[in-house]
């Protein structure tokens, strides 16, 4: 069976931080610990300044094991205000990745 992971469609991440606080609430993390982090990426191109946001998973992400066991999606996926996170088998996520402009897959274990 394929392992599960997260597809992060970072083209649409607005940097709202909902995933981070959802993660902290779910796991009761404190002191800055969190399973996901959103970084702002600013690039001064030749004709335009570009602002992107890139969520990355940390070693504290357990893909919300307790929730997925109860057939609920990970809390960051549910609460992402831009709906840019997708949870599922990595093989399925790869197919989704082909359809989207800018995305990455994380597979924490």
């Amino acid at each position, binding site marked *: 069976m394929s392992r599960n992971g997260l597809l992060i469609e970072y083209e649409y991440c*607005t*940097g*709202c*931080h*909902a995933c981070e*606080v959802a993660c902290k609430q779910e*796991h009761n993390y404190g002191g800055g610990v969190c399973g996901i982090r959103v970084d702002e990426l600013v690039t001064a191109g030749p004709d*335009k300044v570009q602002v992107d946001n890139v969520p990355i998973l940390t070693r504290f992400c357990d893909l919300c094991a307790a929730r997925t066991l109860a057939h609920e999606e990970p809390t960051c996926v549910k*609460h992402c205000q831009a709906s840019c996170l997708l949870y599922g088998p990595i093989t399925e996520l790869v197919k989704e990745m082909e359809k989207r402009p800018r995305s990455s897959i994380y597979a924490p274990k």
Partner: protein
Amino acid sequence: MAKNKDKVTLSTLWSAGCGSHGGCGCEIYVRDGRVVRVEGDKNHPFNQGRLCPKGLAIPQYMYHKDRVTHPLKRVGERGEGKWQRITWDEALDTVEARLKDIRAKYGAESVIFCQGTGRDIGGPITFLMYAYGSPNWVQVGLAGHACYTPRLGAMFATQGAYSVADCSQFLEKRYDSPEWEPPKYIILWAQNPAAGCHDGFFGHWIIDCMRRGSKLIVIDPRHTWFTTRAAIHIQNRPGTDGAIALGMLNVIINEGLYDKAFVEKWCYGFDELKERVQEYPPEKVEEITWVPADLIRQAARLYATNKPSAIQWGEPVDAMPAGSVVAQAINQLWAITGNIDNPGGNVIAKNSHGVTTYPFSSAELTKLYGEDLVKKLNEKRIGANDYPMIKNFRGWVQPDVLIEQLETDKPYKVHGAWIQTSNIIGGQAADPRRHYEAMKRLDFIVYVDLFQNPTSMGLADIFLPAATICEKESFRSWWQPLGVSVPAVEGVDEARSDWEINLELAKRLATTPIKYNTVKELINDRLKDGNTDYDKLRDKGCWEYPPEGDPTRPYYRYQRGLLRKDGQPGFDTPTGKVELYSKRYEEWGLDPLPYYEEPRESYVATPELAKKYPLILTTGRRSPVFFHSEHRMIPWLRELDPDPECEINDQTAAELGIENGDWVSIENAHGKIKMRAKVTPTAHPKVVTAPHGWWLPETDGKAPNLFSTWEYNINNLTTMGNQGKSGFGGTDYRSGLCRVTKIKD
């Protein structure tokens, strides 16, 4: 965390806790009598399961060690920070006795009723104020009343109703509704919707529309995530948005791109508008705004020739010089292109089912409290007699007039204040020091809130602990849908809901008996307009859209006779049309047509001052993890935005010897504070952007420090007394001048 043993309550989030304007559906999980988790409700059409950081942090907010959960009385001098816990009986008896005494000696108008931003507080605070007999409802210090009211007033005058960008929020099936279509273009006008749910609009609906094909035109002095993805970025000089709107009107009219059939049939005063906008050719607008004339032309053409398109605008529009005029000009853009009450345009927004929770307008106040009372009290409403638009449109005090009156005691002295969930000094007030000094002169101040903050510490005599949204019964009809908030737990310790506190005091203070025994009776009485009640709505999952044919449902209501009291087609204005030449503005002694006004202090208006303070200061930058001055004490949120941080352009910073992360002093003719510098190419070389509402709850709360509000609150660089001719707008929140220097260690 195992969730299956937890009791789940569905509710609607609005107000304290998340703090926000939105009406997100939520699931509140309770274990052993405590809220352990708040999640989004997937079945709720407003947020469809999503939730913002502030909503997700509610459990940490509710059970925070510093939350005030018992009534307190001040036992030292004001600002000394000496408080004594008292019972609710003692607190209410004291408030009742003092307020009755002030009323007997000086009249009810000598007590002002102060709220912060537009949340469910508008219901309870007016209920108490009118029961007491005062007309003075105010957001103290909110210069030029610059938060939605200028835009609402302009739309009321122009089209007799309010409009918002149509992201399908008025239909329960949302994006799947067959009658809806996505806007082809959305103009994001001076707003960062990703930061929250401004004006009751869930910001990420914009992203939902982008995924469905909407393209963006963004008007913003900064480079942002949205400008990165926009077809056109109009990077204008802060404060000049009125000229942008007039320039776009000029292009659309002169190039014949407007909706001729709509204008012919449904608009009044087109020829006068056409004549006026001849004063604003794109080349002149370029000089004013720094935006290339061709870019203005392109934006105007794209917007006008792609129908439907929508405009989503933000608070900076209100804060412009002559804010209500800028709003009028923007309203005219969607009017002459026929993007009004059409799917994917600027849909007319009415309170769901015709229910009033928060009486925005004089009309709603009159409906709730009776014409005789409202008219009688208006005679003494502060600022109402100076500004006909303020007198006739909305039941507020004019804040710039208020501060003068607080200082001069003319035409009468203010003796008391009821302040409810409003951090005046650390939050909205321009020139907070002036407000602090003026309000210290009051005889008696009641403060109702959830945490101590600069205002409560500096001014309160009695502190009453309010409940979060998870602890109270409330209801919401701000646009759609109609909803109720359901308590998942009792008030933490002794906290009580704003409705409960105000109903109890209204019973004690009213001059005519209050007919409601309980909050639920009051809510049900108001829900009667929607043919429903609290329990029915709760049992349905907390929300309901109005039935087919209801005038609070879209679209094209002007064609169907659903906007006017007489049931005729048309708009609810004096001429029955969208008034491009505003009869109401004319009646109120204002220019019926839009014009451009320069900020009071700017390179153009005060070139000498600009030599001393060579950068433009725009304040009020929103953080996605804080709501105004709230949430700085919530660890989950604060660690994401730990310091007050101003944005400064990288090249400008290099010239000033400032590096990323340096502490800098921001200073102008009105004040000086410090912030950390975020050095970034996203900032315009001439513009410094600062967040508002910063104070440090971890520092000394006692006066004079007051949680460091004088050191970090950017409003110390802003002023009162710049209000526009209508009384609305004209502030320097968004377009002041400043200089920035590195603070040496």
